[in-house]
C-alpha cells in the first residue's frame, strides 16, 4: 500500500511554496478559512484515486480537474496569482510515498503554457501500488444519493467528483467479515451511536432501528455522517493500509459525539489507516490531545498567513501545546480575554 510521506506545492492555489512531511497516522490540518486545508486534502486524494478502481486509468491532471472543478475546467486557474493565470506562470505538485515512488506534476512541463508533465518516473509506477482511499466531504451526500450517480454520468453538473466518489463507496456491498476484533469494536461503537444499522433499498439509504426504518432525508445530518463512517467500515473502504481524507468531521455533529469520532480515528490509525483531516473545532482538537496514547502518531499542521495578502505558510508539530499559531485556541484566548474584561469591569 504505502503511506504518503510528503507533499510539495509551488505556486498552487494559496501556496507560494509549501513543503509538508506527514505522519503515518493522523494528520490534523488547522487554520482559518482560506488557508488551503481542503486543497491539500484534495491534491493528495487525487494521487490516491488514480491508483485504484475506475480512476486507475485516469491522468492525474484529469482527476485533478474533476476534484477541484475549476471554472471552464481550466487547470491554469489553480495557479496562485489570479493575474498569473493568463501568463506563462505554472505551478507544481510533488507527492512522495514511503515505497519510494514519487508523483510530480508541473503545469508548464518543458513545453510552456498549460502543458502538464510528469517530471519523474511515470504515473504507471505510481499507480502500480494501489492506494485505497476515501474522501468524506463537508457536505453530507447520502441523503442525495438516489439518482445522483446516473445523473452525473449523463449531465454536466457542478459537483466536484469527491461527492460522486464517496456515494459510490457508500454503495459498496459489505464485507463478509471485518478485518479483526478492533474493527468489530469500532463497528459496534458506531452502531450504538447511530442506534441501529444502515440498510439500502434500491439507491435509498435507511437507518434501521428498533423503532423502524427512517430514510436519510429525515435523519439528522450528524447521524448521517456517522452512518457514512459505519458504512465505510462495514464495506472495507477503511481497511488497514487505506487512507482516509475527512474534511471537517465536526460539521453538523454534536460536540458530545466528537469523542467517539476521535476514538474511532485513533483506533483506525492504530490499525494502519493513514488519516488526513481538517478542523475548525476546539473540541475535536482537544479530544485528540486528551485521548492520544503514547504510541499513537498524530501530527498537527497549522496553516497561516503572516499578513493578509501573504501566501500560506505552515508549522507542524506532534505536541498539541506546540501548535503555533493555533487559530482555534486563539479564538478561545480572545473569548477568555473578553470574559476576564467583563468580570473585572463588571460590564
Amino acid at each position, binding site marked *: 500500500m504505502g503511506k504518503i510521506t510528503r507533499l510539495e506545492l509551488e505556486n498552487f492555489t494559496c501556496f507560494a511554496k509549501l513543503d509538508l512531511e506527514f505522519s503515518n497516522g493522523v494528520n490534523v490540518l488547522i487554520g482559518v478559512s482560506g488557508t488551503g486545508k481542503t486543497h491539500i486534502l484534495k491534491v493528495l486524494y487525487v494521487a490516491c484515486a488514480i491508483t485504484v478502481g475506475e480512476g486507475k486509468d485516469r491522468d492525474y491532471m484529469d482527476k485533478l480537474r474533476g476534484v477541484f472543478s475549476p471554472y471552464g475546467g481550466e487547470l491554469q486557474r489553480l495557479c496562485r496569482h489570479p493575474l498569473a493565470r493568463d501568463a506563462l506562470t505554472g505551478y507544481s505538485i510533488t507527492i512522495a510515498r514511503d515505497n519510494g515512488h514519487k508523483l510530480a506534476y508541473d503545469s508548464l512541463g518543458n513545453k510552456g503554457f498549460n502543458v502538464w508533465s510528469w517530471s519523474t518516473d511515470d504515473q504507471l509506477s505510481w499507480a502500480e501500488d494501489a492506494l485505497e482511499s476515501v474522501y468524506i466531504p463537508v457536505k453530507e451526500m447520502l441523503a442525495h444519493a438516489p439518482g445522483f450517480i446516473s445523473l452525473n454520468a449523463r449531465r454536466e453538473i457542478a459537483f466536484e467528483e469527491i461527492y460522486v466518489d464517496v456515494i459510490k463507496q457508500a454503495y459498496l456491498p459489505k464485507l463478509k467479515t471485518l478485518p479483526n476484533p478492533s474493527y468489530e469494536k469500532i463497528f459496534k461503537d458506531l452502531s450504538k451511536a447511530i442506534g441501529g444499522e444502515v440498510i439500502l433499498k434500491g439507491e435509498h439509504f435507511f437507518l434501521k432501528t428498533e423503532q423502524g426504518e427512517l430514510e436519510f432525508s429525515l435523519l439528522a445530518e450528524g447521524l448521517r455522517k456517522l452512518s457514512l463512517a459505519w458504512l465505510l467500515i462495514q464495506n472495507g473502504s477503511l481497511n488497514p493500509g487505506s487512507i482516509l481524507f475527512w474534511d471537517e468531521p465536526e460539521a453538523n455533529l454534536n460536540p458530545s459525539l466528537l469523542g467517539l469520532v476521535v476514538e474511532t480515528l485513533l483506533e483506525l490509525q492504530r490499525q494502519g489507516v493513514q488519516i488526513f483531516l481538517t478542523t475548525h473545532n476546539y473540541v475535536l482538537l*482537544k479530544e485528540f490531545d486528551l485521548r492520544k496514547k503514547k504510541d499513537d502518531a498524530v501530527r498537527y499542521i497549522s496553516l497561516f498567513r503572516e499578513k493578509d495578502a501573504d501566501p500560506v505558510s505552515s508549522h507542524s508539530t506532534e505536541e498539541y501545546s506546540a501548535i503555533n499559531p493555533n487559530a482555534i485556541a486563539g479564538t478561545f484566548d480572545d473569548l477568555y480575554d473578553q*470574559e*476576564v474584561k467583563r*468580570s*473585572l469591569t*463588571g460590564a
Partner: protein
Amino acid sequence: MAFITDDGDIKITLPDHVVARRFDDSTHGLSHCMKAVDYIIEMKERIVFLEIKDPDNPKAKSENCTIFLKSLRSGKIDSELKTKFRDSFLYEWACGRTEKPIHFWFLIGAEMLDSGQLIRRTESLKSQLPIYGPAGKPWKNTFVAGCLVMNLSAWNKQLIDFPATRLST
C-alpha cells in the same frame, strides 16, 4: 506587599495601595462551622476573595493532584468553591466589611489548562454564584461582582500589576 502561598511555591506581589490578608488560618476562629477562602485582597475599588490550588507545585503529592484535577474536570470543585465564597461573604458581612463589590478569583497552578478550559471553569463557577438575582435582574445589594478562574499564565497576562511567580522555576 507580597505574599507566598501556603504551599510555598507561588509568590504574588501587590501594588502599594493593595492589602492582602490570610483568611483561612487560625485567626478565622469559626472554621468548625464556616468554610473560608485562602486570602482576602482589598483594593481601592473592590475586594477580592482569592482561592489558590497549586497542582503544578513540584512538592505536591501526585495522588492529591490527581484527586484535585478530577474534581476540577467534573465540576465537583465548584460546589466547594461556592460554599467557601458564601461562608466567607457571610463572615465578612457580619464583620461589616462588604461595602465594596466583592469578586471571586480562583488561581490554579496548572499550566495544562488552556483558555477554552478556563472559560468553561469560569462559566461553571459563575453558575454556582449568581451575579444577578432572580429572573436575571440585578440584586439590590451585590452578592458577587465577578468570578474568574485563572492559571498563572492567564493571571499574569490579565493582572499585570499583580505579578505571580513560581518560586521553584
